[in-house]
């Protein structure tokens, strides 16, 4: 694939250079001319303008054809469906506007390319026209703004009445920890000033709410229940990015930030998703190819990939920023209950 693309790009570049060469040659025959464009230049560049808008269209089509499948699969959270809907509507809108305006721009550049004797039209003002293309964006954008704001407030105004599962996401250079509230679903107080030995997150061991807190390095979430994340950072800014759930919030030292969502698809369900199956197959093909090369060099091959949700750091945080991740497992309530029962509470951990 890569080789094919490289070849394609080089061929395109070659064609471009060849065309340039032609222009160059043609213009050279008019050596006596100055460095100001003449009719020949206008004609040539006018046609190239027309070619260029077609190039933009083809580039878009080729990109969708080649890479349409790399995009994120359907949302695995409740609110994400709303975001995807808004995204799609905005996307269609900007594509329509983009295709039309790019066409007009380049087509006019082609159509009205200069010719000796051609008279330009003195057209300095037209209040009606200008009013129209001020008011149309106003109306369209008003619609988008209102739609967007409703979506945004729905996501960000967190209603604690429906008893969300409270989970702390704790970021530090260069890893994540998750802390569950335990049986009381309430997080104990914590501060970086209390970090000591096994108490990695600086939880206040004297706080009664903290006793049943559970600290883990793999995030398990029961499907269908709202999760309220409380984000904390130990050192620098991090950002908890969970692309499949359309969720992201910065982790800021000195304050607790929050984000809530309801996962709607278990990891197993997501693995059955057609887009994911295709994507994983594609990735494994690539990994197999890469492994061949590695094995030939006498190195270890790559392991095959299975899909898992992931939490990434998405705010530059230091040298290993590129590898600050945590696995997220969404499972049924029963599986979740069984898993959490196995985890040691903070009281148990600190006693050891």
């Amino acid at each position: 694939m890569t080789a094919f693309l490289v070849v394609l790009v080089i061929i395109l570049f070659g064609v471009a250079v060849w065309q340039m060469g032609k222009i160059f040659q043609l213009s050279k025959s008019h050596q006596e001319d100055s460095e100001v464009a003449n009719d020949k230049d206008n004609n040539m560049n006018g046609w190239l303008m027309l070619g260029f808008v077609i190039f933009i269209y083809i580039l878009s089509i080729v990109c969708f054809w080649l890479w349409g499948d790399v995009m994120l699969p359907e949302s695995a959270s409740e609110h994400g469906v709303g975001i995807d809907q808004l995204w799609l509507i905005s996307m269609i809108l900007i594509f329509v506007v983009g295709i039309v305006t790019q066409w007009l721009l380049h087509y006019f550049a082609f159509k009205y390319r200069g010719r000796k004797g051609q008279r330009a039209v003195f057209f300095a003002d037209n209040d009606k026209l200008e009013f129209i293309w001020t008011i149309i964006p106003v109306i369209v954008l008003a619609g988008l703004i209102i739609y967007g704001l409703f979506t945004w407030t729905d996501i960000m105004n967190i209603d604690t009445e429906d008893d969300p599962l409270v989970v702390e996401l704790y970021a530090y250079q260069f890893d994540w920890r998750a802390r569950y509230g335990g049986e009381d679903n309430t997080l104990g107080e914590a501060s970086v000033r209390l970090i000591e030995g096994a108490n990695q997150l600086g939880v206040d061991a004297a706080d009664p709410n903290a006793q049943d807190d559970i600290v883990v390095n793999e995030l398990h979430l029961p499907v269908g229940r709202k999760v309220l994340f409380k984000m904390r950072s130990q050192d620098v800014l991090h950002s908890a990015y969970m692309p499949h759930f359309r969720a992201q919030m910065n982790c800021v030292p000195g304050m607790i930030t929050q984000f809530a969502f309801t996962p709607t698809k278990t990891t197993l369900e997501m693995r059955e998703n057609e887009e994911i199956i295709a994507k994983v197959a594609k990735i494994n093909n690539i990994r197999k190819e890469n492994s061949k090369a590695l094995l030939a060099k006498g190195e270890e091959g790559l392991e095959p990939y299975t899909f898992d949700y992931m939490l990434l750091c998405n705010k530059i945080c230091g040298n290993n920023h590129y590898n600050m991740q945590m696995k997220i497992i969404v499972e049924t309530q029963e599986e979740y209950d069984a898993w959490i029962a196995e985890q040691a509470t903070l009281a148990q951990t600190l006693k050891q």
Partner: protein
Amino acid sequence: MSAHAHDLAADHHDDHGHHHKETFITKYIFSQDHKMISKQYLITGLFMGIIGIAMSLLFRMQLAWPDQEFKVYEILLGKWGEGGVMDPSVYLALVTIHGTIMVFFVLTAGLSGTFSNLLIPLQIGARDMASGFLNMISYWLFFLSSVIMVLSLFVEAGPASAGWTIYPPLSALPQAIPGSGTGMTLWLVSMAIFIASSLLGSLNYIVTVLNLRTKGMSMTRLPLTIWAFFITAVIGVVSFPVLLSAALLLIMDRGFGTSFFLSDIYIAGEVLHNQGGSPVLFEHLFWFLGHPEVYIVLLPALGITSEIIATNSRKPIFGYRAMVASILAIAFLSTIVWGHHMFISGMNPFLGSVFTFTTLLIAIPSAVKAFNYITTLWKGNLQMNPAMLFSIGLVSTFITGGLTGILLGDSALDINVHDTYFVVAHFHLVMGISALYGLFAGVYHWFPKMFEGRMMNKNLGYIHFWVTAIGAYGVFFPMHFIGMAGLPRRYYTNTAFPYFDDLADVNVVITIFAFIAAAAQVIFLYNFISSMFFGKKGSKNPWNSNTLEWTAEVKHIHGNWDGPIPHVYRWAYDYSKLNKDESDYVIPGQDFVPQTTPLQDNEEEMNH
């Protein structure tokens, strides 16, 4: 007011009927002449641009072929490229300095500094800037800050590497990243000096535009270039000081133990004493400049484009007043949208709503500008000079990049693409490439003004444009896709996530296009340097333009016009204007009416 200023200027000129004898140093180095200072800005900016673009090529190589060893890393990066493997810390340093250099040193100083200096006095009919001395200081402060920024590349622990936005605590704590030691100190010192330079320059531009316009040059007769430079300077004066305060507070946090931006930090095995500060405060201060900065970069490019499109279309710019109003609206709105960089920073979600509202509003004047450019082309007689091609290219990338801004400015949509490559693609198209096109357009168009009548080779210009145009879209269009796949920016390699393995070939394609586009810039550099010495001389007014600069002497003299300063009788856009009985142009056989031409008998008077 302008009439009075004109008298003063005329007196001034008479006093200096005999020019001072100039030495090499006063003419080429510590020059107070705006034309020389503009060339100094341009050449310094281009030099910094070479560094910035070379850096981007290095990290693009790393992104495309993360497992490959390249000898060139070892040659250029020394101990950070040992054995041909790029160190993660130098990767972050490269993206940081690339961003800093391109945004501030190339597109702020190199673009606005160059053309504000060259064109403000020439297009408003002034002998020089209001204060030639401050102007000189402004350039030399810029030069000093460039030197410090380049020197910071050579410090022991590496240059600043916390991203060009230098968010603390990462930028405040050398324990967090090695680049936050001496490298960051130098970065801050360099930027503080840069801000001083920018303020001196901007104040000078504002005063000059307001006070030194020649007789007849009312504000509504100003070419749009001048409007753009003027408003850009105003935005700079309003917002740059805030960055200075952010930088000063950060210096205090770093050196004097204060806690403006730091609180509750446990790093390298110990708790820091800092308490009560907030990194979010820094983000507010930074983006209070950072967002207007986008328009500080873009408005001059749009001003240049307006002038060039009108001249080369042989038509007046469509909707002059709407264009001015758009510039004013963009400038005003640009200072109240900064929060859209911070939707998920932890600030109150209500603020997010407000900033979404203001951000999407800014799309309206931007749309008006784009439509007006397109209408200006309509039924024109387009002269496809290289400057015109770059101007059309600018409108194209401005539209493409602007449209994705509608997605990013929507707080709900920003959640999932924030800090991904989608953002990188968006801002590179809308401000990076667009502003660079503006810079190139300006250089091709005003080269004869800068280098005493010499013109750049048009054929090389065509090759430069077309290869760059293809390369730029080739780089940034596919980049949207890896952003929509959820790939975060500023990752040294994506191999830590098997999930992103299928993006590897996209990255290869992007890098190849980046190399193609960069190769075209070599053609430009060759053309620029060779034309400086051997370029063909054109006529005094090679593009048949209306504006005043083409009435000034071709040979650079102190005071621009050998005789008295010309008076202005009309706006700058009387291209292809017909006489009353529509039998011919106002001036028979000539499709343009320079601003210095009084109203003709057979001519209908317009509003300007």
